[in-house]
């Protein structure tokens, strides 16, 4: 997951958009399970998931939130960001091995508080559908020491 951006508040403008691709591989899945052991059958039992209409075990929606944390903190707006709130709607499932492009678009700037609102779309490129939509409020903090 390379990228180490650091946009300033002044760099950001409404309509600005950045994308980043993530893969839900076994490392992501197993690491998530080891830290947050939600082992409900739809997430770990392939037969159970298929019997309930899915193509296989369903990846946890919170994995997408994890990608968002990386996206906001390292890609866009980057290292000066702090998430204030997240609203996420999971629309369609993601499965093991799926590639997901997270697209963030600035829909609003709150100048008086140095806050930006990003509209989010998770495009599942493997399955050609939108897996989730969301919105995140982010405050942009002052420059780091050594920033130029």
């Amino acid at each position, binding site marked *: 997951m390379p990228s180490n951006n650091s946009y300033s508040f002044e760099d950001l403008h409404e309509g600005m958009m950045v994308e980043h691709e993530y893969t839900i591989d076994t490392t992501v899945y197993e690491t998530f399970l080891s830290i947050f052991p939600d082992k409900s059958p739809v997430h770990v039992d392939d037969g159970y998931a298929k019997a309930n209409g899915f193509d296989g075990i369903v990846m946890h929606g919170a994995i997408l939130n994890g990608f968002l944390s990386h996206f906001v903190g390292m890609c866009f707006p980057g290292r000066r960001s702090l998430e*204030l*709130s997240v609203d996420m709607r999971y629309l369609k499932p993601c499965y093991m091995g799926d590639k997901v492009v997270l697209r963030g678009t600035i829909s*609003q700037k*709150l*100048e*008086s*508080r140095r*806050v930006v*609102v990003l509209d989010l779309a998770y495009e599942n490129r493997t399955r050609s559908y939108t897996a989730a939509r969301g919105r995140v*409020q982010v*405050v942009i903090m002052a420059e780091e020491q050594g920033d130029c």
Partner: protein
Amino acid sequence: MNQDQVISRLQRVFDNIFLEPVQLTPQLSAQDVEEWDSLTQISLMVAVEKEFNVRFRVGEVEATKNVGEFADLIVRRVNGN
């Protein structure tokens, strides 16, 4: 647009943000509502700027003492002042 009309629209904004119902009056302030903290204040400002298509300057929302003064600020901003 006057204060009453703004508060009526503000009520809908508050209804979408606060988990517990908040009945707006001109005298109501953040100190009266447990859920109305600094993070909720930012969500409110984001929603209000969008609802009324206005922009606030640094510190002017914080300078209002209650919903009535906040509504008056919105009235002024909507009217271009």
